[in-house]
């Protein structure tokens, strides 16, 4: 189909309006040619009789009612796919920008994808060893999961994402195919380069497809960026049997682009000006993770988002948490204490870990250890808030022990720097930490497990506790 129209009826924000249009379809892609030879892209977002509204991805600057020619493509937006996207860099529209020429195309795919039939899914169960204790031990990442990092400005979410990508790759013993799809939305050039460099250092650059819509790129194009990236991921996973890890950053910038589009369309805004359909829109991205029966590949997503004002109830983290299978929350206080990775473990969660840990997966005591660490660390928070009122000296002996446990837990377990730990190391460390609490405080664990793993002496040695009074206290309640 080759319908062409000259001139516009109206331009309003990123939208252009055309009159007397016939035979075009909802969400059809259009090409916009300017007099000066420039080409832009757009999508039909509303049809009202013969009046259509088109969203222009690259923005409407320099457009006038006269200087444009609109060409309808006859179909929704598709991009060309083949395994050759690996090792390449694209813009937010899926066009190569690495000067390496066109990508060989074996298939054109609709970037919106289609809803995956729940019957076609395989429930994900295999854990990915990331080497990070707070993740492997407490919020285990599962292959095929969507597990976002909730962060804030200035926190090391990019480091953590890179660390996960690098270490997860190394632990992959079996000779399975893997790939990384990276989508950047509204982040700076530095950030994109940082990722690129670390992929390079890990020697995997030829297995990475990058889709970049950087801070100074057209904002509305951002709406397409994750869709192009996920189309590539689905293609690689489901048609080429590759295990694909998708890193998308920053989802907050993506949502802001969506808000801009929505308000220009005059839609009734929801909370904080975001459109009422933000949930559905995000779901249409995040649900494109998983494993299907008909292929051996998988799509695992690690979206990164910055919480405005570190506020987890802000609509973006809030709606994300309602869709994703858990979240890894970075904590500013830990960050300020110099702890890396500053993972706030209490609000963090992996919904899929329950079926991917324990005997046959990690170790049979994993579930108990995790429950107990969470419960005990939550008690630390109570003790700390009490201490802030009455002073640490006035705390009861038990509360003091919790203060002590909290300190060690943060210094030894959470704070691990960039080196990798095996799952055994992580679990053993967890038990050692619990062993500095009185045994009867461990009320989430059954006796048999405690019998096997509770060992006060070893804890004292391991943490090199020298203070005589602490040792005395620690040993006292044993009998």
């Amino acid at each position, binding site marked *: 189909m080759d319908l062409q129209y000259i001139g516009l009826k109206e331009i309003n924000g990123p939208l252009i309006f055309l009159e007397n249009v016939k035979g075009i379809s909802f969400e059809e892609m259009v090409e916009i040619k300017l007099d000066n030879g420039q080409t832009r892209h757009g999508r039909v977002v509303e049809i009202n009789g013969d009046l259509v509204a088109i969203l222009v991805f690259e923005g409407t600057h320099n457009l006038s009612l006269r200087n444009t020619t609109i060409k309808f493509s006859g179909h929704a937006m598709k991009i060309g796919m083949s395994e050759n996207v690996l090792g390449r860099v694209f813009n937010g529209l899926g066009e190569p920008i690495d000067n390496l020429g066109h990508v060989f195309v074996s298939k054109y795919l609709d970037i919106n994808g289609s809803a995956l039939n*729940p019957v076609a899914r395989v429930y994900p169960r295999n854990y990915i060893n990331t080497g990070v204790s707070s993740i492997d031990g407490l919020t285990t990442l599962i292959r095929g999961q969507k597990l976002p990092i909730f962060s804030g400005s200035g926190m090391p979410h990019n480091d953590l994402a890179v660390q996960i990508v690098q270490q997860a790759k190394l632990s992959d013993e079996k000779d399975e195919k893997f790939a990384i799809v990276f989508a950047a939305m509204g982040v700076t050039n530095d950030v994109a380069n940082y990722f690129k460099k670390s992929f390079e250092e890990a020697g995997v650059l030829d297995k990475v497809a990058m889709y970049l819509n950087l801070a100074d790129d057209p904002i509305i194009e951002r709406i397409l960026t994750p869709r192009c990236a996920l189309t590539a991921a689905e293609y690689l996973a489901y048609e080429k049997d590759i295990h694909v890890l998708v890193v998308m950053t920053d989802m907050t910038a993506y949502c802001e682009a969506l808000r801009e589009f929505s308000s220009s369309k005059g839609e009734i805004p929801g909370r904080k000006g975001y459109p009422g359909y933000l949930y559905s829109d995000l779901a249409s991205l995040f649900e494109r993770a998983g494993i299907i029966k008909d292929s051996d590949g998988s799509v695992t997503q690690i979206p990164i988002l910055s919480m405005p004002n570190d506020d987890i109830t802000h609509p973006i983290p809030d709606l994300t948490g309602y869709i994703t299978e858990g979240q890894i929350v970075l904590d500013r206080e830990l960050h300020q204490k110099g702890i890396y990775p500053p993972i706030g473990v209490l609000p963090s969660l992996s919904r899929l870990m329950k079926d991917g840990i324990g005997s046959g997966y990690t170790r049979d005591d994993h579930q108990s250890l995790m429950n107990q660490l969470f419960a005990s660390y939550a008690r630390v928070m109570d003790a700390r808030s*009490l201490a802030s009122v009455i002073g640490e000296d006035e705390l009861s002996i038990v509360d003091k022990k919790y203060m002590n446990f909290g300190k060690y837990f943060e210094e030894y377990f959470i704070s691990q720097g960039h080196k990798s730990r095996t799952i055994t190391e992580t679990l053993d460390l967890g038990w050692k930490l619990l062993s500095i609490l009185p045994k009867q405080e461990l009320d989430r664990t059954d006796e048999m497990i405690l019998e096997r793993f509770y060992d006060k002496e070893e804890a004292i040695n391991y943490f090199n506790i020298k203070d005589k009074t602490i040792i005395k206290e620690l040993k006292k309640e044993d009998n």
Partner: protein
Amino acid sequence: MNKVYAINGPVVKVKNATEFTIMEMVYVGKDRLLGEVISISEDFTVIQVYESTVGLKPGEEIIATGEPISVTLGPGILTNIFDGIQRPLNKIYEKEGSFIKAGTTVPALNQEKEWEVTFKVKKGDHVEFGQEFAYVEETSLIKHKLLVPNNISGEVKTVKSDGKYKIEDVIVKVEDKYGNLHELTMVQRWPIKKPRPIKDRLPLSIPLVTGQRVIDTLFPIAKGGTAGVPGGFGTGKTMMQHQIAKWCDADIIVYIGCGERGNEMTQTLDEFSELIDPKSNKPLIERTVLIANTSNMPVAAREASIYTGITIAEYYRDMGYHVAVMADSTSRWAEALREISGRLEEMPAEEGFPAYLPSRIAQFYERAGYTQTLNNNNGSVSIIGAISPQGADFSEPVTQNTKRFVRCFWALDKELAYARHYAAINWNLSYSEYINDLSKWYNKQVGVEFLDARQKFIKLLAEENKLMEIVKLIGKDVLPDYQKLTLEIARVIRVGYLQQNAFHKEDTFVPLDKQLKMMNLILYLQKEAKRVLKEGKAFSLLLKTNIFDKVIKVKYDIPNDQLVLFDNYYKMIDEALHAIK
């Protein structure tokens, strides 16, 4: 011919049409997308489309069906998984592969399968609307009663003999008093937004026993009752629904995944096929039907999924079954209403939700109830609806409006969830209004001590709450011993009783008699400990005995089928306390 005029997401308009009726089912465009007429004016008829409208063009045809959006009711519903408009997802998978395409048409129920039919009427019998005229064994658990449909009554003219038939086969013919002959098959259609008729509503007096202690003991729901479960993400709404769906003593479970995760539906399907119901020794899926309209499926069908589910529930209720409906999450349905309303440019009420949100919520929950069916059986529909409040803020419209129309409120708490105290039901914010209606049943079926013990638990938790205010300011050490004991017993109740581990073999489901025995044991410990304090012994010495922790772990250490072991614990308490010097 009626043609598409305007398209805005799931909303399609037709210009100058007059023959549509409100709530009529229509097919839109060349792909025959399923839609429903939602408003009519002189200029425009507005249709909401239950499938993606990408690729739809103005000028494409819209076909009226003359029928409201309906479900197909008949054998083959159980063990199945449908989307929001009752398309069988298994069949779609077989036909089209992993991804769902718009405009797919597959009959809801298997039309080829032959069912063994046993007839309950003979030639010359008089039958009435709602009467059972035959049955088939739909699963090894559930006898599917075939009910005379759609206001038909009259004389049976022909009956096939018992044997194998397909659902569309005519098996009975009935002549009404005007001489019209009606052909009955095993299927009937029913409009999803119209409640199925009943003879009478009966008072609620029997609990829906869930095996979840905090519910059965503190905040029970009646068979035929309603409960709202609000909670921020990760607080355990879905797990709670799964737990109830697995273990509650309903006959039939209708599980509606409305706008939630695909993997959760896959998990439910897998798990329920494997899990064996302890009472019947049959896989749980044999009493279950799943409705899956996941968050990435078209928004408008979320609304339909809720009604599809409840209509199926009513249908089984009419056979005399107790049906429990899980709706996860009703907030996604409300948001779908908001989205459509927004596209219609209706005047929004609170937070963009349409003004008719409260009445829609009310109509939905009103379809619950304990009823006398048309054929004089008793059946019930209980509804448990999850609510996903924005920012975990319970003052938002969906939570508040649901609260007006449900009688159980199980408020899930972020802090409890962070500390991994599950079920994270906040005992200060939650309530059940059924307790009086159910007291007779508890007294008779479980024992008069049950509600007594419950009352004592509630009092202890309230005392703890008050004491914690003080502790937060000055610490625990300064409290007198008897108050320390109160705190310790409250801890035993919280950790040893209210908290329940869904992943633990013994703890995942706990029968009422064990619940009572656990309560009694804890209260005995309290009584005895109090006595020892009165004798002037220090609380610190009591703590040293570790007896509190032994009692906390009773939930794991005494299997559900070895309740005699409780006796040992009484001895243990006596010995431990006696040994204190």
